[in-house]
């Protein structure tokens, strides 16, 4: 039986403690004061003014006389190379007070301008979102580890996979973790619905009330899907389906161990996995819309669910690689060798490229079409967040591609560990860039809340997964494909 070594356990407790302190600091810090100290806040705005002074001037005329134009007409008037700036200009160049007037004057003009002004209007409120957003980024990052492992485990049964039969206990241990981040997300959602924070634009007070100054016609039009009770019901459904799937797969797996030699519950597991995968196919997309895409509630992308899923899956595969490497080095998995690691490495390599494909597909269509209501999403991401966005794509595509493209590299633990480290950082940044521009705008940073949240969850992750790994033998007794897994070679 696997026992989490005392020093690792100590490290995990230290991480949880340090993370909790970091989160506490993040939550108690005065957000306005912090934003003032933040190098990214005001300084970045000033920079923008200098960079685009000419554009801002040119745009001035439009701001006065063309605000009520439709977005399309507006974009056509502006020369092609400044169209991009025109769409995003209000966010970058106008102060909050001016925007408030603009909203009042053009309340019905829900063009790209209206959109950008709405975001700008609650820019001041957004700084209070910072610790909650940091918590959400880390919850989603760590959620991906758990749900990706559950998905991967279900795939093993449905595809009748043989090679991984000796690894199912590791997948199970990670998949059960899914409940912790899900519960934290539920807490964040309930806090949002009670206006404790304003991460989700559509949860703002009065945003769907025609008589409120906060009224937003576009968001009100989505109230059939984006409303409090349905949102909570969907989150509860994710908890039931995702954790339920992980729990039942684990339960049957343990029950199988107790059966006489030669008997198994494989068929039952397979049916269960098939049902889970059908439900997950739907909930993976809807959860991405709910938790992440609805932060930028005006914007939508039909690819978003798949893009999020691909990122989550590859993050989980990377974590599984690292856990398997750790267990192998400790001598806990003598029946696993370079051939199994090679296959896990292939998954990491392949799904890094798959993620890039989806990320780029979403980006390129929006970039090429240049429709104002779509490009707003990438304005901030290719503006203030550009260094992180570029770094993130390099870490998530170029690094794993070049490190793992050769066959030999996928069989060397050092290469896999190195690639895993970079991909984990890259996908943390990916989730950061998905969430932060919409929830805190330019008041982002890497402070106590972000780092603390990460440490807190990683400590908990080590404790929970370590406990799950130790709760049962690391090898299933009666899995029908165990022999195939032991003999597996390539």
């Amino acid at each position: 039986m696997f026992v989490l070594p005392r020093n690792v356990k100590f490290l995990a407790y230290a991480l949880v403690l340090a993370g909790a302190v970091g989160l506490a600091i993040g939550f108690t810090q005065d957000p306005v004061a912090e934003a003032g100290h933040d190098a990214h806040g005001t300084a970045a705005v000033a920079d923008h003014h200098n960079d685009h002074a000419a554009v801002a001037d040119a745009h001035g005329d439009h701001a006065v006389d063309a605000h009520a134009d439709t977005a399309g007409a507006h974009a056509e008037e502006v020369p092609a190379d400044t169209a991009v700036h025109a769409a995003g200009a209000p966010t970058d160049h106008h102060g909050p007070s001016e925007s408030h007037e603009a909203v009042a004057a053009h309340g019905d003009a829900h063009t790209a301008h209206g959109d950008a002004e709405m975001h700008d209007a609650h820019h001041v409120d957004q700084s209070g979102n910072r610790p909650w957003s940091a918590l959400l980024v880390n919850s989603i990052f760590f959620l991906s580890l758990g749900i990706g492992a559950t998905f991967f485990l279900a795939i093993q049964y449905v595809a009748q996979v043989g090679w991984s039969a000796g690894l199912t206990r590791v997948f199970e241990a990670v998949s059960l973790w899914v409940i912790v981040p899900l519960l934290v997300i539920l807490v964040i959602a309930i806090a949002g619905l009670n206006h404790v924070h304003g991460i989700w634009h559509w949860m703002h007070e009065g945003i769907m009330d025609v008589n409120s100054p906060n009224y937003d016609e576009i968001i009100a039009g989505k109230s059939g899907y984006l409303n409090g009770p349905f949102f909570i019901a969907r989150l509860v459904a994710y908890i039931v389906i995702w954790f339920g799937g992980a729990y039942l797969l684990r339960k049957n797996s343990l029950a199988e161990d107790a059966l006489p030699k030669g008997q198994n519950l494989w068929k039952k597991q397979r049916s269960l996995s098939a049902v889970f995968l059908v439900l997950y196919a739907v909930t993976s997309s809807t959860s991405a819309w709910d938790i992440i895409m609805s932060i930028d509630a005006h914007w939508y992308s039909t690819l978003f669910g798949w893009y999020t899923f691909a990122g989550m899956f590859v993050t989980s595969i990377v974590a599984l690689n690292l856990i398997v490497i750790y267990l192998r080095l400790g001598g806990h998995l003598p029946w696993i060798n370079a051939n199994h690691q090679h296959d896990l490495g292939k998954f990491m390599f392949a799904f890094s490229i798959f993620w890039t494909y989806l990320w780029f597909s979403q980006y390129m269509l929006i970039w090429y079409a240049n429709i104002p209501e779509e490009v707003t999403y990438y304005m901030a991401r290719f503006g203030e967040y550009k260094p992180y966005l570029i770094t993130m794509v390099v870490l998530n595509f170029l690094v794993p591609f070049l490190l793992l493209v050769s066959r030999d590299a996928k069989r060397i633990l050092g290469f896999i560990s190195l690639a895993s480290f970079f991909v984990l950082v890259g996908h943390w940044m990916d989730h950061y860039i998905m969430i932060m521009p919409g929830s805190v705008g330019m008041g982002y940073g890497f402070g106590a809340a972000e780092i603390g949240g990460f440490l807190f969850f990683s400590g908990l992750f080590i404790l929970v997964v370590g406990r799950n790994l130790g709760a049962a033998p690391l090898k299933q007794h009666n899995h029908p494909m165990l022999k195939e897994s032991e003999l597996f070679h390539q």
Partner: protein
Amino acid sequence: MHTTDSKPLVRALYDDDDVVLGAVKELRAQGVAVKEVYSPFPIHGLDKAMGLKDTRIAMAAFMYGLLGLTTIVTITYFQMIVDWPMNIGGKPNATWGWNMPAFVPVLFELTVFFTAHLMVWTFFVLNGLYPGRAPQNPDPRTTDDKFMIEVEDGNHVVDLLKKTGAIEITHA
């Protein structure tokens, strides 16, 4: 059939792929040089059992990919930026970098095209597979349901081949 080897060859026919695999391992363990194995289909693990060198086609493939990428970067740069810039969808094409996202699909296609095609041609050339080449197969039955091991002649080679399950042995 003559080969460049001066040593005479012995050819043994088998009727089962597992037996062939076991025979190759046994022969090599006994110090017999296995020159070639003929089979109607690929036998898993045979390359390792024969002690063949790892293929270097992967490295070649990577180089072909880089060649393809370089080619298409040059083509797009010359055509779309230098020679005949066009305003497509309002995208400024003053620099290649600004327009890069529009080129990514064709960058991918040409990289894959070069890799795949040049790999296939490399494979053909290395294996001497070209039209009009005289058949190298000593026994047509190995294209149907029989397997053949070709070894260098030596002491007790025939006995050893019989022991490993050969159903027919000929001296070349």
